[in-house]
Structure formats: C-alpha cells, structure tokens
C-alpha cells in the first residue's frame, strides 16, 4: 500500500503548487481543497483516522466554506485574476522560490543524515486521542476553547461595518489636522 501513500503525497504537492500559482481565487480554493483531501488521505494512511476525519470535516468543510464566503462576498472574480496575473511576474517569485529551495535543501540534508529506517505506522485510535486530550492536555483544551471564544468575539467585533477604524492617537491627529485646516480656511 505504499503506492497509495506516494500517490496521495504527489497529489498534495501538485495541488499545493497549483494553489500558490493560480490567479483566480476560486480556483486556488478548489485546489486547496484537493490538497486538504490528499492530506486527509495521508493521515489515514499514517494510522491517524481521527485526524483524517477532522481534516475533512473542519478544514475542507468548514474553513474552506468561510473562504468561499469571503471570496463571494468581496466579489473577487475576473478583475482580481487580471490583477494577480500582473503581480505574479518571474522576477517577483524567483527569489523567494530559491530561498525556499535552499531552506528545503538544508532540511533535506538534515533529515537524510539522521538515518531512520522504515517502519509500519501504528494505529492511534480516536479513543486514545480523546483520553490523552482530556487528561494530559486538558489545560491545552481549555486554552484552545478560550482561543476560539476570543476568535469568535474578535471576528464579530472586527467584522462590524464601521466607517473608519482609527487608533485613538491617529484620531487625535486627524482632528488636529482638521482644526488646522479650519484655521487656514478661516
């Protein structure tokens, strides 16, 4: 079954590559979804069926929907794609790519020099995960809960429509400038 692993891996890589090179946001999102599904496959093959399920339900399901909502909300279509095409030039991406390649190469050297043999992935059942989560990592779960709570409140707050969001210092400056303006006008 190694072949399944390699196929899933290849799909993930190719889909990811497509994500970062697409001009149209919707296309990119779809590729990302493919990539996430491939990830889920990988997780499953590594014996982490719980993780694979979460990947599909939450990532590919919930989070991606959020993205799509936003893309739809902002009505990012052809114009954005045109813009992206203009922005994505060779001289823009070649440098960072090389940098990342160097990083990867270093990573490669380090990993290969460690010399681990092949193994058969152990199956870690959802039950084990749950026990671990609510025993040893209980505090982490609490923190994660708080984080999500904060995120909900934050998102609700930030997402409200306001005409102008400025820091209070900047606000004062604006007021001062306005006063100056008025003085000049007078």
């Amino acid at each position, binding site marked *: *079954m*190694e072949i399944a*692993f390699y196929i899933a891996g290849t799909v993930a*890589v190719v889909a*990811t590559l497509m*994500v*970062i090179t697409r001009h149209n*946001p919707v296309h990119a999102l779809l590729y*990302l979804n493919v*990539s*996430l599904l491939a*990830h889920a496959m990988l*997780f499953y*093959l*590594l014996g*982490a069926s719980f993780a694979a399920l979460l*990947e599909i339900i*939450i*990532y590919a399901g*919930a*989070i991606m929907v*959020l*993205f799509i*909502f*936003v*893309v739809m909300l*902002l009505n990012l279509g052809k114009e954005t794609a045109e*813009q*992206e095409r203009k*922005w994505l030039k060779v001289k*823009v*991406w070649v440098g*960072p*790519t090389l940098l*990342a*390649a160097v990083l*990867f190469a270093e*990573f*490669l050297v380090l*990993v*290969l020099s460690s010399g*681990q043999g*092949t*193994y058969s*992935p*152990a*199956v*870690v059942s959802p039950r*084990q995960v749950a026990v671990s989560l609510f025993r040893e*990592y209980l505090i*982490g779960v609490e923190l994660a809960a708080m*984080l*999500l709570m904060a*995120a909900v409140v*934050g*998102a*609700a707050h*930030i*997402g409200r429509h306001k005409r102008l*969001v400025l820091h209070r210092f900047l606000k004062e400056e604006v007021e001062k400038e306005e006063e100056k303006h008025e003085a000049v006008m007078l």
Partner: protein
Amino acid sequence: MKPSVSIEVVVLLAGLLFALGIVGVIIRKNIIFMLLSVEIMLNASGLAFVAAGSRWGQPDGQVMFVFILAMAAAEVSIGLALILQIYHQHKSLDIDNLKEMNG
C-alpha cells in the same frame, strides 16, 4: 494493512509542503492568497506531527494536530474578518498598500 514507509519521506513531504507554503506567502500580494498559503503551512506542520505520533504510536501527535486545527480556525475567522475590513477601507487586497506600520 498499513504501508511501511520511511519516516524521512513523510517528514520530507511535510517540509516540501511547508516550503511551498512559504513561497506562497512571499510571492503573493493578495491577502487572501497569503492566508491560503498560511493554511498550507499549518497543514504541513500538522502532517509532521501526525507522522511523528504514528511513528511512536502515541496519541500526542494527533492531539497537537487538534490544537493546530483549533488555532487555524481561530486564525481564519479573525483573518477573514480583517480582510473584509481592509477591503472596505482600502478597496484593495494588496498587502503593500498596508505598509503603515513602519518604524
């Protein structure tokens, strides 16, 4: 009926995906794409965790993945809310338009 793969290959795969994520973050000017690339990077690290967990037969790897997931959810919700606001105020998603926080 699990495959027997070398741990290096899995970790290298995670590294490759991570590197791609980095490239995505750097080369794109559109914030949405940057956010997508960040998701890729998160996933890549999640993959590494899960691989490690399965290598040693411990649940910790998946636990970490759950936390990553929670964090990603929080991040995406905040990030998308910010994107909405930025778009409303600047009428653009170009990250270079937001260089206000320079020293």
